[in-house]
C-alpha cells in the first residue's frame, strides 16, 4: 500500500514528471492537457491520503538531502501544510480546466511552456507546504518565484517584460535580502531551523533579536504582499488570467501568507511572537494594508487590477492574524487561507471568462453583461459575498475568528480596520455584479453575439461555477477544519 514517505516524495515527483512530459509531448494539445489533468487528479488523491494521515495525528517526514553542513532539506507534513497542499492541489484541477478553455479560447502562444511551468510552480508550492524547516521552505519559495516568472511574462511584450521585472526584483530582492538572513539568523540563534510546535527559541532569548527577525520575516516573505512590498502583485496582472488565478488564489500569495503563519506558529511560537513589540507594530502595518489596499481597489476600473488590490487587502488579514498570534487569530488566519483561495479564484476565473467571451476588461463596460452571462456573474456574486464574509458563505468564518481574536487581544481597536474593510469590500465588489444584472446593456446588438460566443467556451464558465459552489459548501465544514488546525497550537492556547 501507500507509504507515507513515498507519498511525500510524490508531492514533488508528480508535478515534476508532469512538467517533463508536457514539454516532451508539447506538440499534441490533447495529450498535453490530458497529462496536466491526470497529474492534477493524481496529486489531489495523494494529498487526500496525506491529509487523512495528518488528521489522524501522524506527521509523516522525509529527509530529502543533507544540505550544506548543518542544514537539511526535509519534508514534514503538519496541519497547516496539509491545508495549503490540499488547496493548491484541488484548485490546480479547476485551474487546469479553466486554463484549457482560456488558452484555447484566446489562442495564446507558447501554451506548452505555460502548462509545464504551472506544473513546476505546483511542485514548488507542494515543497513549501511540506517543508519541515526554514531552509527547505526558502529553497522551494525561490523555486516558486522562478517558475512563475515565465508565466507572468507569458505574453512577452514590453508591458509583460516590465511587470515581470518588477515581479522578479521585488520577490527575489526581498527573499535574498531579508528572508535568507532571517533564516540564517534563526539557525544562528536557536541552533535549528526545524518547525516545532510552540517555537524553537529559548524563553531567555534576546527580545531585540526576535523583533528584528520578525521584521525580516514579515517583509522578507514578499509573496505575502504586506505593504509596502506589494507592488509586484498588481504588476503581475499582465499575465494571462489563469496565471492570475493561480498566483492570486493558489500558489504564490498563499505560499507567502502560509509561510508567515508557519513561521509565527512553529519558529517563534505564538506566545513569543505575541509578546514581541514588533508584532504589535506589524499588526498595525497589516491593518493599514487592509484598509489602504481596499481604498485603492475601489479606484480601479480594470477588473483584474481591482481584484489584485483586493488580494493585497485580504492577504493582510492573514498576516494580521499571525501577528496577533492568539489561538483564535491563528485559526482565523488559516481559515482565511482556505476561504480566500476559493473565493478569489472564482473572481479571477470570472474575470477571465468575461475577457474570453466578451473581450472586456473594464468594469465600466460591464453594463448588462449579467443578463447574457448569468452563470458567470452569479458565480462572481457568490465569490464576492464569500470574500466580504457574508454568511452562509465560507468566507464568513475567518472574519469571525479574526474579529474575536482581535477583540481578545490588546489591539481591539484594530477590529475597526476589519469592519471598515468589510464595508469597503461591499462597495468595490458587489456593484460589479449589480451592474451586470441590473443596468441595461450599453449596446444590445453587440451583446447579441456574446450569447453565441458563450456557447463556444463552456470550459471558462464551468470552473468558476464549481469554485463558487465550493466557496459556499465550505461554510458547513468550518468546524472540521478548526479541529484539524487546532493541534498546531501549543498546549496553552487551546
Amino acid at each position, binding site marked *: 500500500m501507500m507509504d507515507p514517505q513515498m507519498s511525500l516524495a510524490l508531492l514533488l515527483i508528480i508535478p515534476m514528471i508532469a512538467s517533463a512530459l508536457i514539454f516532451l509531448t508539447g506538440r499534441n494539445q490533447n495529450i498535453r492537457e490530458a497529462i496536466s489533468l491526470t497529474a492534477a487528479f493524481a496529486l489531489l488523491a495523494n494529498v487526500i491520503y496525506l491529509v487523512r494521515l495528518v488528521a489522524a495525528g501522524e506527521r509523516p517526514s522525509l529527509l530529502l*538531502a*543533507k*544540505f*550544506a*553542513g*548543518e*542544514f537539511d532539506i526535509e519534508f514534514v507534513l503538519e496541519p497547516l501544510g496539509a491545508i495549503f497542499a490540499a488547496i493548491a492541489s484541488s484548485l490546480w484541477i479547476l485551474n487546469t480546466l479553466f486554463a484549457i478553455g482560456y488558452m484555447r479560447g484566446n489562442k495564446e502562444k507558447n501554451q506548452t511552456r505555460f502548462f509545464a511551468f504551472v506544473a513546476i510552480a505546483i511542485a514548488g508550492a507542494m515543497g513549501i507546504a511540506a517543508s519541515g524547516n526554514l*531552509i527547505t521552505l*526558502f*529553497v*522551494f*519559495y*525561490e*523555486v516558486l518565484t*522562478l517558475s512563475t516568472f515565465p508565466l507572468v*511574462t507569458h505574453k*512577452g511584450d514590453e508591458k*509583460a*517584460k516590465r511587470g515581470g*521585472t518588477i515581479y*522578479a*526584483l521585488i520577490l*527575489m*530582492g526581498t527573499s*535574498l*535580502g*531579508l528572508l*535568507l*538572513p532571517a533564516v*540564517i*539568523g534563526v*539557525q*544562528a540563534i536557536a541552533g535549528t531551523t526545524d518547525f516545532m510546535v510552540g517555537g524553537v527559541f529559548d524563553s531567555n532569548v534576546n527580545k531585540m533579536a526576535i523583533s528584528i527577525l520578525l521584521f525580516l520575516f514579515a517583509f522578507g516573505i514578499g509573496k505575502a504582499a504586506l505593504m509596502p512590498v506589494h507592488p509586484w502583485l498588481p504588476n503581475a496582472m499582465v499575465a494571462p488570467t489563469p496565471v492570475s488565478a493561480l498566483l492570486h488564489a493558489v500558489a504564490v500569495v498563499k505560499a507567502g501568507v502560509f509561510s508567515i503563519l508557519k513561521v509565527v506558529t512553529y519558529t517563534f511560537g505564538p506566545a513569543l511572537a505575541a509578546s514581541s513589540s514588533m508584532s504589535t507594530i506589524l499588526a498595525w502595518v497589516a491593518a493599514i494594508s487592509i484598509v489602504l489596499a481596499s481604498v485603492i481597489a475601489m479606484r480601479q476600473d480594470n477588473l483584474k487590477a481591482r481584484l489584485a488590490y483586493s488580494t493585497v487587502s485580504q492577504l493582510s488579514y492573514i498576516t494580521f492574524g499571525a501577528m496577533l498570534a492568539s489561538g483564535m487569530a491563528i485559526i482565523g488566519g488559516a481559515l482565511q487561507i482556505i476561504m480566500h483561495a476559493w473565493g478569489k479564484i472564482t473572481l479571477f476565473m470570472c474575470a477571465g471568462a468575461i475577457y474570453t467571451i466578451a473581450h472586456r476588461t473594464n468594469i465600466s463596460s460591464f453594463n448588462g453583461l449579467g443578463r447574457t452571462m448569468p452563470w458567470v456573474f452569479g458565480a462572481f456574486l457568490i465569490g464576492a459575498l464569500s470574500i466580504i464574509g457574508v454568511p452562509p458563505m465560507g468566507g464568513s468564518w475567518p472574519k469571525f475568528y479574526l474579529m474575536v481574536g482581535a477583540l481578545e487581544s490588546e489591539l481591539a481597536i484594530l477590529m475597526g480596520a476589519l469592519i471598515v474593510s468589510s464595508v469597503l469590500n461591499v462597495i468595490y465588489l458587489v456593484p460589479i455584479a449589480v451592474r451586470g444584472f441590473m443596468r441595461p446593456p450599453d449596446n444590445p446588438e453587440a451583446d447579441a453575439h456574446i450569447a453565441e460566443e458563450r456557447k463556444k467556451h463552456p470550459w471558462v464558465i464551468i470552473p468558476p461555477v464549481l469554485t463558487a459552489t465550493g466557496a459556499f459548501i465550505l461554510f458547513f465544514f468550518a468546524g472540521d477544519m478548526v479541529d484539524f488546525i487546532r493541534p498546531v497550537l501549543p498546549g496553552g492556547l487551546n
Partner: protein
Amino acid sequence: MDFLSFMPEWLITHGAAVLVIMPLLLGAITAILPSERLAWFVTLFVTVFSTVTAFAILLVIFGGETQLYKMGGWDPPHGIAYVIDGLNAPIIFLICSMALLTTLYGLKSVVAEVEPKKRAPFYAAFMLGMAGLLGMVVTGDAFNVFVFLEVSSISTYVLVAMGASRDRRALAASYNYLILGSIGATFFVIGLGFLYMETGTLNMADIGGILRNLDGGSRVSMVAFGFITVGLGLKLAMFPLHLWLPGAYAHAPTMVTVFLASTATKAALYLMLRFTFTVFDVSFDYVFTVLTFIITGLGCAAMLLGSLSAIFQTDARRTLAYSSIAQVGYMLLGVGMLTAMGLTASYVHVLNHAVIKGALFFALGAFWYRYGITRTEDFAGLGKMMPWTMGAFTLGGLSLIGVPLTAGFISKLQLARAALDRGWEWAVVVIMVSSILAIFYIGRLLLAAYFQSPPEIDGEVVERNEAPLIILIPMWFLALLSIGIGIYYSDFVVQLGQNASDVLLQGDRP
C-alpha cells in the same frame, strides 16, 4: 574506493611529481609539434591523465591521509617537498579537471580564435600554465612557489596575448597583466627574502615552525607578511589590486578566460591561505590585524564595488570579470572571519565559483563563436538564437545570484551563517546587497536574451544557430554540476571545505 584499485601504486606515490612534470615536459615538446591537431591530442592526453591522477589523490586524501613527496629523495627542510593534504588536493583536482574541460572546448574554439601557426604553441603555453598552477599549489617550498608562480604567469601573459587575432585589445591587456603580475611576483619574492633572513629556511612548514617559536618574529617577518600579502593580492585580484583582471578576462581567447577565471585566482587564494595560516599564524598580532581589518574590509569593498561596476559594463565578458572581482571579495570575507566556519565557507565558494564562472564564460565564448557577440546590447534574442547555450548561461547566472538549489546558494548560505556565527551582522547585509546587485547584472543579460527579438540583418531575422556539441558538452557539464552541487553534492563540497579549514587551523591546536 574501487576506483583506487585500478590505479597503479606508483602513480599515487609519485602522483605529486607526475602531475607537475607531465605537462611541463610534454608542454615543451608540444611547442615544436608540426600539427595543431596532434598538439590538441597531446594536451587532451595530459589533461585526462592528470585529472585521473588528481582524482585518485583526492580520494586518498579524503580518506584522511597527507602525502609528502620528497623531490629527488632529499629530506625536507633541505630538499624540496611536495605536500598534498586536505587543503590543496581539491584545488589540484579542480585545476586538472578544468584543464580537461577547457581542452575539450578548445577543439573548436581555438580554431576560431587563434591564428593557425600559433595553435601548437598555444597548447604548449596552456600546458605550461597548467604545470605552473599545479606546481605552486602542490609544492611545500616557498621559493618553489615563486618559480611556479612565474611559470604560470608568464605562460598566461602569452595565452592572453594570443587573443589578439580575435581582438587586438588582448595585447594591451596582456601587457598590463605582465607589468602588474611581475610587480606582484616581485613583491612576493621580496617577502620571501625577508622570511629567509628571519628564519634561514625556505620550507614552508619549517618557516612556520620557526616563526611560531619566535612568536611571530621581529619586524622583518612583519614586513615579509606585508610584501607577500600584497604580492599574492595582485595575483588573486584582491580589490583594489584587480586592475589587470577585466582586460585579461575580456580579451583572452575563451579557453584561456575560462581556465584563468576558474583556476588562476583560486590557486592564488590557496597560496594566501597557506601562507597566512601555515607559514604565518593568525595568533601573530600583525596577521590577525591585517586579516580582520584590512582583508575583510577589502573583501567587502570588492563585493559591493565589483558588483556595482559589473552592472555598468557594456561588454558581457567585462561584466563577468567584475563579478569575479566581487566573488573574490566573498572569499576574502570568509578568510577574514578567521573561524572554521568562515574558512569553510570561503573554500566552498572557491570551488563553487570555479564551476559557475566556468559555465558562464563557456557560454559567452559560444556566443562569440557563433555570432561574434560580446557586447551586452547584442544579447537581444539570444534565447531564440542559441537556446541550449543560453540555457546553460541561465543556470550559471542563477547560480551566481545565489538562487536555492544552485551551488551559489550553498556558498552564500555558508558564508552568511559564518558571519552570524562570528557576530558580524553587517557582513550579512553586505552579502545580501551584493547578491541583489548580481540580480541586476545577470538579469539585464537574461532579459535581453529572452524578451527581445533576434536582430534583423538585411530584413531577415537571424536564424537559430546552436553551438557545436563539443562546446555544449563542457558547458552543460559545469552548468549541471552547479545544480548538482546545489542539490546533492552540497554536503560533499562542504565536507571538502571543512577538511581544508581543519588543515588550516591545525596550528591553533595544542
